[in-house]
């Protein structure tokens, strides 16, 4: 009797909503809040392989941070990360936007071709990395072969092993990987602009460029803001491509913060160092996330 009453409560009564909320909150606590706080805590502790098993470790204050800032690779990696994020997003956004506008034109098969573009996005980044590694391979790569066939270059360009190119090769692959996502989000934003607003602008005397500048761009503002914010977050967690393409090398030429953090945590077991990098990235992502949330709110206000 009691048991069936409980089942009924959970199924029909307030217990159902309560269960859903508790499940969601529990999930967030265990899988989001705990690792996040644990990472931040570790960035203020002395952690090595021998203290991994305990939670109480010597408090390190800010030494992990100062130690990090004084490493010779710190400045180059921060700079690499900035280039990586900025260039990735700039090109993902412009190319994605151009494609979104292109597929807005109703030509036969446009929806199918647009769907095909998504295929690139659903591929795991590691697979994409493997494919791009073949493309970029220095001695027997597709890209060098193509460039040589076209007569654009004479010798080999070592896309991945030449420190001058490695970072940009990873960026190119990341741009390719991010374009479909940008395109789809921007397509959705563009579809949200009513057609008659464009017609009204046309009647009011706006030509194509003026319509883009005065109607499309401002009305896409919130969507663009959201896409940029998501882009920053995704780019900052783009680990797989780096791992598959260059592993940060050669000589840290293509190393970025997220990969560095992993290297320290899981290759040289400087776990507090890895946690410190991760914590600084968390802070940055939080700032971006706030911008994103603001942007989404503004989107709803139209």
């Amino acid at each position, binding site marked *: 009797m009691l048991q069936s009453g409980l089942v009924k409560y959970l199924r029909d009564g307030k217990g159902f909503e309560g269960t859903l909320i508790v499940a969601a909150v529990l999930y967030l606590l265990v899988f989001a809040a705990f690792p996040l706080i644990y990472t931040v805590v570790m960035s203020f502790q002395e952690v090595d392989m021998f203290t991994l098993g305990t939670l109480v470790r010597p408090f390190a204050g800010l030494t992990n941070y100062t130690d990090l800032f004084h490493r010779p690779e710190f400045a180059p990696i921060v700079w690499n990360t900035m280039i990586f994020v900025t260039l990735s997003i700039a090109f993902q956004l412009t190319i994605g936007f151009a494609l979104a506008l292109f597929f807005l034109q109703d030509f036969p098969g446009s929806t199918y071709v647009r769907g095909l573009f998504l295929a690139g996005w659903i591929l795991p980044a590691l697979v994409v990395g493997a494919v791009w590694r073949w493309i970029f391979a220095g001695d027997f790569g597709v890209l060098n072969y193509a460039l040589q066939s076209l007569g654009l270059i004479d010798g080999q360009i070592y896309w991945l092993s030449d420190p001058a190119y490695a970072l940009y090769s990873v960026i190119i692959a990341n741009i390719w990987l991010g374009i479909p996502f940008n395109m789809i989000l921007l397509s959705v934003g563009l579809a949200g602009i009513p057609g*008659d607003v464009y017609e*009204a*602008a046309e*009647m009011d005397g*706006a030509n194509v460029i003026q319509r883009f500048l*005065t109607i499309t761009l401002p009305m896409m503002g919130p969507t663009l803001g959201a896409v940029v914010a998501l882009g920053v977050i995704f780019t900052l967690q783009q680990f797989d491509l780096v791992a598959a393409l260059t592993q940060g090398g050669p000589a840290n030429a293509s190393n970025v913060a997220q990969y560095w953090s992993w290297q320290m945590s899981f290759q040289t077991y400087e776990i507090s160092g890895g946690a410190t990098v991760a914590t600084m990235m968390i802070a940055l992502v939080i700032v971006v996330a706030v911008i994103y949330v603001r942007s989404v709110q503004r989107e709803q*206000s*139209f």
Partner: protein
Amino acid sequence: MNQIEIEHLNKNYGSLQALHDISLDIPVGAFVALVGPSGCGKSTLLRTIAGLETITSGTIRVAGEVVNDKAPRERDLAMVFQSYALYPHMTVEQNMSYSLRLRRRPKAEIDERVGEAARILGLEKLLKRRPKQLSGGQRQRVAMGRAIVRKPKVFLFDEPLSNLDAALRVQMRSEIRKLHKNLGATSVYVTHDQIEAMTMADLIVVLHDGRIEQIGRPLDLYRRPANRFVAGFIGSPAMNFVPAEVTADGRTIAIGTGTLLKIPRAQEPGRKVLAGLRPEHLRLDGSGERLTATVDIIEGTGSMTFIEARIGSDLLNVAYAGTYETEAGAPLTLGIASDDIYLFDPETGRAL
């Protein structure tokens, strides 16, 4: 002189023909209503004039100049959309000044013209607001204001009142009409509501299935509908149609179980016809041509009484200005003036 001249215009969507051989002259300064049921092609016709739809064949002239291949922005026409199509990211002021800013008019002129339009439409206090913060009626006014500031040759209205509630619709009807008179521009107004067309327009174009059924002044359409469709569409409540047969002498028709009604003009004896009787022409005092009927339904609003009456198997709607009390099943003697009886060919629908 005509502001707009349309000759033999055809518009196809693939194999579907949306407009058939439309020819229409719109005089300078006229208020022309394009009216018809949904899907009749009235909005398409308006959009071809605007340039938002291409035409398959024919010619459109604005102020004597062929505009077939001109972009909408080169035609100097202003349009008010059914959805208003306001720019959501701009304030009321920016919405109204948009066209002038695109033309790089001096700021003083823009301010003056926007100010004037705002005054005419009572929008002065709303200039800094966004469309989202406005009521439906206010948005409608902004859409009008956006058109007014341009001082165009022609205003195109695409069902501008259909999203408003009934009371506001009646009010805006007369405001638009007044505005038209004051601005003196030509207006082309699309509506599915024949009352709007009747009350606002100088000239009504009735469209049906992509064809023009009749063009005329409102009362001409009411009095002399060219065919059964126009007769049924213009007038409210709608005209009653009763199958009838012309008698041997050609001067009367027989309806229902043999009631004889005198007709205005002699017809070919024995011919089958459709008799059109307007509800408001049927009198309850039995004067004129007399019909005996039975009350089916009676609805009174005080000022008006609507009765659905039965003659044999035919139903007749009666509209009586005033109160009248009776009950379902009661006998009813109706009368109608011979001149108010319309006759239509049952096959072609043409007025006889």
